[in-house]
């Protein structure tokens, strides 16, 4: 198992190199001079040139890239042009905020999605099925910020039960989670529905029925455990997409998340923060994908024996079988 994890972690290195390389390339094409952004609009040309030298912006791009990667390896992501704080110190709390919202949203989306998926699979081609489809599709068909603004309108402005924006009180997390979660219900429902339909047709379900097992237990203990595997995969991608992509929601609800931090940094041409943010997201993504694969292995024993046990298990199984 450890060997497998190490292999996956090593895979992280090419990804991080790739991400930083691409951003460096994009950086050279984007107009707007970071030095001017730091010094403000009325800095003189000499000051700007001095600043560019100080930041090493005039060096050839490959040299800057190598110096940056050298820093990253030692954990020094450089300082943000805008505030001078170390980039890590600014990103980590924001990563926490984005993480909480993403986890909450995926939880809402997955739980509701799976339940609705099972319901519509069991009641295939009935009005329940199409009603579930319509409801789950509704939130996926409306732009995120429209849902966000209407949620604020309803819960904060008219009902005064949730704060309109900001996360001083933990209540502030509820609406962003709801917004992102509701949008993802449709995909989880659809995936659960089709994989449930597939699993319910399998032979071992018929064997379970032949045992006299109740329909409810068959659905939850037999069918769901098999049907959940593709759902876990899409949960992984769901987590991955919303960690970095929460820009719109974080703007509407004024939440200091990673997505907004990176986009603000792009507007301010604050490249160390942009690079730091993207690398952190890449790192988190790889960890999420790894966790999803591990979850696979725990849920699906067929993988466990091939991946984790590797040598050990195979030796034992080869023992001569009883007649």
């Amino acid at each position, binding site marked *: 198992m450890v060997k497998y994890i190490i292999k996956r972690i090593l895979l992280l290195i090419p990804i991080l190199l790739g991400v930083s390389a691409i951003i460096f390339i994009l950086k050279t094409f984007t107009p707007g001079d970071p030095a001017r952004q730091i010094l403000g*609009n009325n800095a003189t040309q000499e000051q700007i040139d001095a600043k560019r030298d100080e930041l090493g912006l005039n060096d050839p791009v490959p040299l800057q890239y190598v110096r940056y990667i050298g820093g990253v390896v030692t954990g020094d992501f450089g300082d943000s042009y805008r505030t001078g704080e170390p980039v890590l110190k600014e990103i980590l709390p924001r990563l926490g905020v984005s993480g909480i919202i993403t986890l909450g949203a995926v939880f809402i989306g997955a739980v509701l999605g799976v339940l609705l998926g099972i319901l519509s699979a069991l009641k295939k081609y009935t009005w329940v099925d199409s009603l579930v489809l319509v409801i789950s599709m509704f939130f996926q068909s409306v732009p995120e910020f429209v849902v966000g603004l209407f949620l604020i*309108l309803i819960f904060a*402005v008219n009902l005064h039960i949730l704060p309109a924006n900001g996360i001083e009180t933990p209540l502030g997390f509820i609406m962003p989670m709801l917004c992102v979660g509701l949008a993802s219900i449709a995909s989880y429902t659809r995936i659960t529905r089709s994989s449930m339909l597939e699993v319910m047709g399998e032979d071992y379900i018929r064997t379970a029925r032949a045992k006299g097992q109740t329909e409810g237990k068959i659905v939850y203990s037999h069918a769901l455990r098999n049907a959940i595997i593709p759902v876990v995969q899409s949960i992984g991608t769901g987590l991955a997409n919303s960690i970095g992509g929460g820009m719109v929601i974080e703007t509407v609800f*004024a939440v200091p998340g990673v997505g907004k931090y990176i986009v603000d940094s792009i507007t301010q041409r604050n490249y160390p923060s942009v690079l730091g943010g993207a690398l952190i997201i890449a790192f988190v993504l790889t960890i999420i994908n790894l966790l999803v694969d591990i979850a696979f292995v725990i849920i699906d024993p067929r993988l466990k024996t091939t991946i984790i046990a590797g040598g050990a298990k195979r030796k034992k199984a080869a023992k001569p079988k009883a007649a």
Partner: protein
Amino acid sequence: MKLRKLAAILLSAVMVVSMASVASADIIGADVDAPNTTKTDETLVVTLASEPSTLWGAAAGQVENEAEIIIAATQDTLVKSDKATGEALPNLATEWEWLDATHCQFKLRDDVVMNDGAPLTADDVVFTANVWKEYSANNDTGRYIAGAEAVDEHTVVIEFTTECPDLVNMMSWSNFGIVNESGVEAAGGIEACAKNPIMGCGRYIFKEWVSGQSVTLERNENYWDLDYAGYFKTIVVKFTNDPAAREMAIESGDSQVAADMPVIQATAYQGSPNVNVVIYDFGQVTHLWYNMTEGHPTADQKVRQAIEKAINYEALAMVGTGGSATQALGYLSPSSPYYHELYTLEERALDIEGAKALLAEAGYENGLELTILGLQDSVPTYTVIQENLRAIGITLNINTPDTASFVGDAFGGNYDLIVVGEWIPNRNPSAYVFVSEGQIASGFVIGGPKVTTPELEALRQQIITEPDNATANGYMEELETIMKNDTITTNLYPELKAAVIAKDLKGFGTIERGFMDITTLYK
């Protein structure tokens, strides 16, 4: 049919909720209520548009709106400025006099105590002046400061780089807040003050800045001006980019003030019963500038005149100010002491045929393509101009990049048209910056014609250095008339600022450049 019926019900429910809150509310201008007298333990929450990178602009050579609003509450300036006449009023300095063309002597109050307990002395002013000179050399804060020296405990002479009687008024700007050396050391030195500006002797003391979330200020109990009473014990400044979200925070009671709202959007919120909308003029007019460097069609005066004839000024003012003001007939705002009415309504009447004829004369019979540069919030006004020019055959491309590219393009003159306002509260050295030879040469002028004439430059110098206001006023009228005759710029409409405040809040005041004063609000 079930599906469609379901969608229809859901949406009508939502519409009913938002329509219910439509009712009219009148416009309240700024600085109209009586000053506050009671002190309470309440907290005021103000939401601004974006988070500044530093809170002490003077030491970072930056001039960020949000930072100025906050620092104005925590630091006090030598003089205050009378909003109506633009005259300097005593504040930390009781009186002042010009010793010669560039030296001005200030007499300080002796009863002022800084936040760290030390009394205010002339040395503090000298220390602060040196900070301005050294750290803000390239913006208006430090550019005109040559030095300062203490004559005695409470008298200081400040030396300026240029001769300009109105420079004293400039001392009222929030960037000129006075601090003391011991206070700065206590805060951790000049660099650390950007994040922790506890020094100064303002009406409120800086408490804490949680990055990405809020800045907290607390009332300065031993503030020297006894007839000022801060109603709120604590002020929390939060940052929310989306104006709609800022406004809703007030309706839901999470915050009391949504500052710098786009005017168009603020007028829309007038309909809501549980908020008040404050829309006010701060003495700035929005101008349409033509890039007159050669290679741009707008270098030809006929093209500029054609554009001037095609614009529907009333409609533009309606859209630009959300219907709160009409078109501007002069370079400055009517509220300014140096206001001159240059245009008559007939001159500004819509003349499509005339415009087309001028274009034909200029050799653009079959149309012309121009680009107009601006930020995201100027899109509505640009759409009106675009439509007006379409009527005479000019296709106007609207280019609204993000801030960094905008600044690059604006400095580099990468545009044919640009709409920029100029704030001239008094005859300070950076008046009429767009036609100032020095500024254009420095290349750091956002917009403007990018060329000027020696005649305009000479007039500018006379305006700045002329001690007598009346004569200077004549020179200003002369300069503005030249700009009108050569169609160097077209005045559009008075730029307004707007804020949305809670229903029960009064005392909405402003500091320089129309930024709000968060210390004068009360219930």
